[in-house]
């Protein structure tokens, strides 16, 4: 099976769905690049090249460059979705959420409910998350917890190319609004990805590694750090079960709880900030549902409650890494009441 990067996998999912269904359109800032100028079209193909080549295949009626106004992108996409198209709108960096949150929080997330189930909103919002590129505090956040907090939005946080393709196709075919969060630093990671279209159901976690000692739940780029930590820990005799929820809404609570019932120990790794985050949420759910099984306090490995620093040495400290994960697992594993 061919190896493909996450960037290729997402591009392939978009192209295949656009070919299959003429209602699918792509709309956002510089999704091709060069619109309205004398310059070259498709100069950008998205700021990190994810939508490159789509305009050549599908034309500028279906690959729409917009002015720099997130509120207009989300407003237009929301209207298009309720009137019969299946837009894939791009919110370039999730950090820009603030200027278009009404469209997402109070419009698309509520349409089905407010209109008594008479309208579908098949909208996908693709957005980049993640620190590690020296892009400072306003272009480096992982804000999926804000979307996860909103009933009516489905939230996808893939960790690899195979999952990204299958989850994006599922998102496009889903009749409800889906926020699809792409970590910038997994774009170049390659996995085996089928050429054919396929769907991965929402709300089913992936068990990345089997283990009986400590359950490690990790999202997006953190899954790879958790795997590195698990390899080190295995040589010390500690076997981690790594669970990648893949979607934070819906969340596969059963898989996490069943694992913790077996291991009795839980570490949650989340690149986002710690307060009111996905790690805090999972921690609360497990404390409620599997308290009796816990042999040690639940540990969260997250970023600190600060903006993402620009200084490279501080940014490195900010992002959870394999060493921190391993240390948390060792502490959890060694805990005695």
């Amino acid at each position: 099976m061919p190896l493909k990067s996450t960037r290729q996998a997402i591009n392939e999912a978009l192209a295949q769905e656009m070919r299959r269904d003429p209602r699918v359109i792509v709309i956002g800032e510089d999704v091709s690049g060069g619109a309205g100028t004398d310059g070259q079209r498709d100069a950008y193909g998205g700021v990190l090249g994810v939508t490159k080549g789509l305009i050549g295949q599908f034309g500028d009626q279906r690959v729409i460059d917009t002015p720099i106004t997130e509120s207009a992108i989300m407003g237009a996409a929301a209207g298009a979705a309720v009137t019969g198209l299946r837009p894939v709108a791009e919110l370039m960096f999730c950090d820009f959420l603030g200027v278009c949150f009404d469209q997402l929080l109070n419009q698309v997330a509520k349409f089905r409910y407010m209109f008594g189930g008479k309208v579908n909103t098949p909208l996908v919002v693709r957005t980049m998350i993640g620190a590690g590129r020296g892009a400072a505090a306003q272009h480096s956040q992982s804000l999926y917890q804000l979307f996860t907090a909103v009933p009516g939005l489905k939230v996808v946080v893939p960790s690899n190319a195979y999952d990204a393709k299958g989850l994006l196709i599922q998102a496009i075919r889903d009749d409800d609004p889906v926020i699809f969060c792409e970590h910038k630093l997994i774009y170049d990671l390659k996995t085996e990805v089928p050429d054919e279209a396929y769907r991965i159901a929402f709300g089913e976690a992936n068990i990345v590694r089997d283990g009986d000692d400590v359950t490690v739940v990790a999202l997006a780029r953190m899954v790879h750090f958790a795997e590195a930590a698990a390899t080190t820990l295995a040589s010390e005799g500690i076997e981690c079960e790594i669970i990648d929820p893949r979607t934070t809404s819906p969340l596969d609570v059963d898989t996490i709880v069943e694992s913790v019932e077996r291991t009795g120990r839980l570490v949650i790794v989340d690149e986002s900030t710690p307060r009111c985050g996905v790690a805090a949420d999972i921690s609360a759910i497990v404390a409620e549902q599997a308290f009796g099984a816990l042999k040690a306090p639940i540990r969260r490995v997250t970023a600190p409650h600060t903006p993402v620093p620009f200084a490279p040495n501080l940014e490195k400290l900010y992002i959870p890494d394999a060493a921190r994960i391993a240390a948390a697992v060792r502490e959890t594993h060694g805990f005695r009441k």
Partner: protein
Amino acid sequence: MTGASLTAITMPQWGLTMTEGKVVGWLKKPDQPLTEGEELLEIETTKITNVVEAPVGGTLKRIVAEAGATLPVGALLAVIGPAGASPADVDSFVRNFRVVEPAKEAVGAQAETLTREIEAGGRRLRVLETGEGGIPVVLVHGFGADLGSWMFVQPSLARGRRTVALDLPGHGGSTKDVGSGDRKTMTVVLAGALEALGIGRAHLVGHSLGGAIAASLAIARPASVASLTLIASAGLGAEINRSFIEGFVRAERRKEVAELLGVLIHDPGAVSRRMVEDVLRYKRLDGVPEALAAIAAAWFADGRQAVDLRAEIAALDIPIQAIWGETDRVIPASHAKSLPKSAAVHVLAGTGHMPHMERAGEVSQLIDRVALRET
């Protein structure tokens, strides 16, 4: 006592993509006497847990790899030798042992180049070919499976002989267009595959649904079939596990798939997470649920087998053998009794619906024996 009389037990390579395996546990203790073919240890692979048999008789002189160890293909697991072999000789044998380890890339590349696509009866099929010479052995998998299900038997069958495993339409890497998916369609596809491969006469081996398709080809073109091995075959009676078939068509979740795969084999504990994941990845592909539903409707509607080949098989004049697991929970082993008296029937104890995975050693020997006789 020289090192020459000591035998290394190494991590086997089951299937072309296997690069490492995990020692689940030893079934023999150090210094225990062994006869050739006795079960020695269990290895967990990405697909299933399987047993390594002693290649020679003797004494288990040394266990090198403890339970729980994950080791590359070719790594030393144990040493067998004469009862009198001295510990010093065993020590030096272990010390001087060198792993002949195929590079991971080479193994992957080999598997890639060995699978290829052919056109058969207007449909694109994926095939995996290994070995050269003799009358080829052609392996046809069952409902919902793919050519990978032969991973444990194909390598040994390929010694000195051409072997071809194929993916049926709707399965594995083949087209997901199955048309009506019925007996005629599938038989035409299999005939077309042999033609495309330039195979005039073959030893046909079919499992479950694949057995009924292989038998249908033998009925349609007896001259092109040198022998027929039917493993837990469909087409030999009315009963079939309805909840398995319907569940398999429907299943979308890991848990459902894990439970269904547990029904397939005698020891559900042997199903690995990777095996479940492989089935899920297949089932997620566009067109697969529809293809499986079409095939299930054509062959197994309402929980009964619609295709009954017993009378036509009885009229065949080719060597036929049936291999069945005694505890098969998908198609009962009693169906083997409906074969003509001339057919050899092997019912394997402690085995479910997947003898070629659960008892790979015995099954490949049985296929080999029939194929050797007819070459």
